[in-house]
């Protein structure tokens, strides 16, 4: 599993020097259960099952602050994306289904919000 995550993300978690700048930069810290530095650490120590149970994978904003500020070019956001993909690529594991949409629909909501949510949350 670790190898899959590493391959599809293209991230080498061993480059991490555990400085915590990703987590310091994360605007979604209060919402997420696991934080960017933990993603890196847990992928490295092959604790991917726990990450796949995490609700944080649906709360990462993909704002790339952790990618931008990491002094070792680790790119934690790509790991979070890879774990989320590993989950939703499984049968019946879509996080969002079309019938959930209408109730969430605000007339002013731009298309891109829905498109991105679908892209991020289902296969």
């Amino acid at each position, binding site marked *: 599993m670790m190898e899959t995550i590493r391959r599809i993300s293209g991230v080498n978690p061993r*480059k991490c*020097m*555990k*400085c*915590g*700048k*990703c*987590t*310091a*930069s*994360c605007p979604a*810290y*209060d919402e997420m259960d696991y*934080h960017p*530095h933990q993603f890196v650490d847990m992928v490295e120590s092959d604790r991917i099952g726990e990450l796949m149970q995490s609700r944080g994978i649906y709360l990462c904003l993909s704002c790339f*602050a952790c990618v931008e*500020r990491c*002094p*070792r*070019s680790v790119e934690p956001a790509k790991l979070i994306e890879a774990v989320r993909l590993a989950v939703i690529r499984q049968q019946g594991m879509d996080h969002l289904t079309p019938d959930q949409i209408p109730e969430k629909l605000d007339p002013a909501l731009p298309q891109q919000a829905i498109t991105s949510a679908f892209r991020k949350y289902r296969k």
Partner: protein
Amino acid sequence: MQRVGVFVCWCGSNIAATVDVERVADVLGREPGVVFATHYQYMCSQAGQELIQNAIHEYDLTGVVICSCSPRMHEVTFRKTCERAGLNPYMVEIANIREQCSWIHKDRESATEKAVILGRAAIAKVHLNAPLTSGSSPVKKRALVIGGGIAGIQTALDIAEAGFEVDIVEKKPTIGGKMTQIDKTFPTLDCAACILTPKMVDAAQNEKIHIYAYSEVTSVKGFVGNFRVTIRRKARYVDETKCTGCGLCTEKCPQKKIPNEFNLGLDNRRAIYIPFAQAVPKVATIDPAACTMLKTGKCGVCSKVCTAGAIDYRQKDTYVEAEYGAIVAATGFNPIKLDKFDEFAYSQSPDVVTSLELERLMNAAGPTGGTLLRPSDGTHPKTIVFVQCVGSRCDDAKGKPYCSKICCMYTAKHAMLCREKYPDTDVYVFYIDVRTPGKNFDEFYRRAVEEYGVHYIKGMVGKVVPENGKLKVQASDLLGGRQLHIDADLVVLAAAIEPDESARPLATMLTASMDTNDFFTEAHAKLRPVESPTAGVFLSGACQGPKDIPETVAQASAAAAKVIGLLSKDSLVCNPCTAKPNELMCNGCSSCEKVCPYGAITYLDKEFRGPNRTVLLRRVAQVNPAVCQGCGACTVACPSGAMDLQGFSNQQILAEVDAICR
């Protein structure tokens, strides 16, 4: 044909683990001309050297091949060994089967095969070796130190102490360097000025030391023992010999708004200025970019108030040429620019400062008179956040890949001083690792935590947001498992340090090598740490790598010791591997002379016997072996093949090529 002995070293298991040394000795022993071949555990040990010497006597060897580590490591050792056994030291060749074979290959079979081939090449070469005798060249008994910071000053003082003349070239108007800007020094907290300024005065008053301040080296020629250096003395527009340093001009100059570089732009100076009260030499300097008189020809206030008549608006740069036996690079460091790290809002808020700026804000001679006040509004900061490793340990182009080494300790010092002077402040230090290897260093850091109550937090700051007069710091607390939000009044960034920008062009002039970070490379990382690989060039202080003051001073003195060792010799043994023309083939075309970077080649009209008892007068090249450095440029330039390089002759290299391609 030579009688060659082959000695294969195991280097413990370094070679023997990958290369079948016995087989190498066996195969090479059957090469033509080889009369003896053996292998031994440590050829460089006393027993190993004796083994070689005994073999030279017993088998009457005329050439020796050692298959061992790099010639850069032990060529000199083995040459001496053979010399002691009565063999010319240049009859030795080394086959590098460690760095270039056993250490880089894993497969025993192919490594052994390669070791044999490298051995064969060395044997082929040694057959064509000829005994060489070294000449000598005189040593100019004067040293040049480039850079007048604590490193340069210490080196110069030590060299002068041994009785040699030494010149310091400093590009700034005063010597003293970074240490003049520092307030207190760790781990004893004595005042930097109190321990530095006496040394500056010593240097100025020492009759063996000459200081060229506000000057730069513009060219270096020559070689160890005989460097010829040109120094540009930049125009100060003030006569150094007349200026008394009274400072009146610096008070009257109407140009008041020039950022004061000594205080890192935290306050202003005039267009004519003395950097600080203890400057050496204490003379004024006109900043030509700021002076109205120099720009427009109108003003002249400083000239009017100067009672000594020292102001000279027409002063020009002058050049000094001098000869030196040794050169010491002591060009120091600078903190990096932080414009690429604006997540810390350095360019968005004056209350985000670098550690060096904090030194000025805490220094009694600084812009705030030593009271720590916020640059924005002059209030006392109550909450101070220190961020370590800003730009250090970065693997991208924004920062530096190395640890800047000094930041952990000066941050502990700053945090401690803040808490000591202002006990009502809250001080946070965000760290990745706290690195305190040094005498009394960890104790110092622990005191900051235990006695002074500095909050050390394992984590990093991610974002600083200036808002309503505060700095909202968002950071991680990795051990506490939380994201912290601190409303700080002052944020201090421990910026990475980098070599001074003058180091790179200087290295080119000195032909001294640098690493990818522009630090000077030492001749050997462990055994020759204060010498550059270029003979006669030595390294002092942070130009070789990040260093704190005690380390800098230690290295400065070590560099001085090396210089003294060199200058105390009357002459140096020259490298005998020099170019040698075959006069019978030389046609006097001057091609070699044109490519020689040392001017070692001259021409002589010489009489040669012609046919029918005639005498021909021909112009032929002559090489001065004391000046030739043996690069070989001339050997390839020579159209008639008359020029050859001893020790690396055409025939020798071709023999190696043949042996490898066999």
